[in-house]
């Protein structure tokens, strides 16, 4: 892999192109509101080089990190990038978000599913209570979980969209390790 290229001197033509690509990368991340892969970022930045797309995204991330801003660019494990609000600001402004956000109840159900997945629906109902039927419907509608199987044997797991939303890896074992780290629990989730 090439070493990320520093932005060229701003007076040159290449420098202008770099700046323009940097702005396009930012525009794409702003508009998408979800992690974008290098292929998409490259196409937006008018290049075929995924490596260049990555250099641009990393440079943008460094720029955001160096500045006093409420926004951050996260690099996910699979080289995807996402622009989002720093979590410390969420509480004060979440009421202004357009998309209705989930309340604590469904979020608890979601974290339980993520931690124990693939988990029988019956187990989730036992642990969280019968009222979680509503949560499951909501989480399913938002595309955060899927139900597999039918009736009493239904199994729940989180989706790729869920992993993207939280910046988790798509690999189940890896995701559980990440979750364990976040929850700070000494109990390892059951690997199934």
């Amino acid at each position, binding site marked *: 892999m090439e070493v990320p290229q520093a932005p060229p001197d701003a007076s040159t033509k290449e420098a202008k192109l770099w700046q323009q690509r940097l702005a396009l990368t930012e525009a794409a991340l702003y508009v998408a*509101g979800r992690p974008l892969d290098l292929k998409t970022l490259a196409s937006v930045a008018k290049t075929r080089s995924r490596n260049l797309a990555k250099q641009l995204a990393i440079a943008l991330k460094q720029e955001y990190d160096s500045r006093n801003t409420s926004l951050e660019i996260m690099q996910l494990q699979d080289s995807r990038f996402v622009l989002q609000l720093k979590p410390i600001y969420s509480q004060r402004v979440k009421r202004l978000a357009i998309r209705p956000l989930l309340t604590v109840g469904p*979020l*608890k159900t979601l974290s339980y599913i993520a931690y124990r997945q693939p988990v029988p629906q019956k187990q989730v109902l036992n*642990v969280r209570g019968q009222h979680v039927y509503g949560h499951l419907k909501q989480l399913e509608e938002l595309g955060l979980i899927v139900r597999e199987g039918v009736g009493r044997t239904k199994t729940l797991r989180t989706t790729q969209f869920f992993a993207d*939303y939280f910046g988790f890896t798509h690999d189940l074992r890896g995701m559980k390790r990440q979750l364990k780290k976040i929850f700070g629990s000494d109990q390892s989730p059951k690997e199934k």
Partner: protein
Amino acid sequence: MTMRKPFYLQPPWNVLFELHKLEKVKPWKINISFLLISFLEEMRKYGEVDFRASGVALDSSAFIYLMKSKLLLKLEEPPVISKTKLEFIPPPLFLPLRYELTSTTIEQLLVALDSVLKGEKLLPLKPRLEPILPPPTEIIPEIDRYLMEIEDMMEKLFQRIELLIKGKPFLNFTSLIIKRKKLEAIRTFILLLFLAQRQMIWLWQEEELGEIYISMNVEMPFDGSPASPA
């Protein structure tokens, strides 16, 4: 010489005297009242008053009552919570906030409007659905009218009492409701209570559940205000 087996050691009373049988029977199937009454009747019939047997019967009845009570109380107890293994419940995962440009355009809004307005045009052609109201009941308006006209009816009843009581110290309630239907009798009684409450008449009884006597309060004209002193 063989002793005759006492009647109470035979069914159905034997359940009171052979306590081991109680364990095999559902307490709800035992009609204690019936057993005790028939037990006493049988004893009277045979002329054998055995206080020991009565004592045992009483004791057994109390025991059956206790069994029934325990069953009832058991139903009220909260269901036993199965001891599920305590497992780690992770805290909620809070979603990161991300702005996302949505893709709805003004063209899409207008296409939607177009189809709605077409639907609106068709609307008057649809048959108008009238709300289906439940048929009026016969009782409610009757009562309403009764309550609304109560003043009027009080006055009429008062005039009737005045007419019937002429020359007599009192009138009995039975003569007021003679040959009248039950509902009308009840209404008349209620009206009497209203009149008495306004002290326009006096009501009294000589014995509980006996005849009700009515007399006029001569100091009160109908309008309810005390008569001006002459």
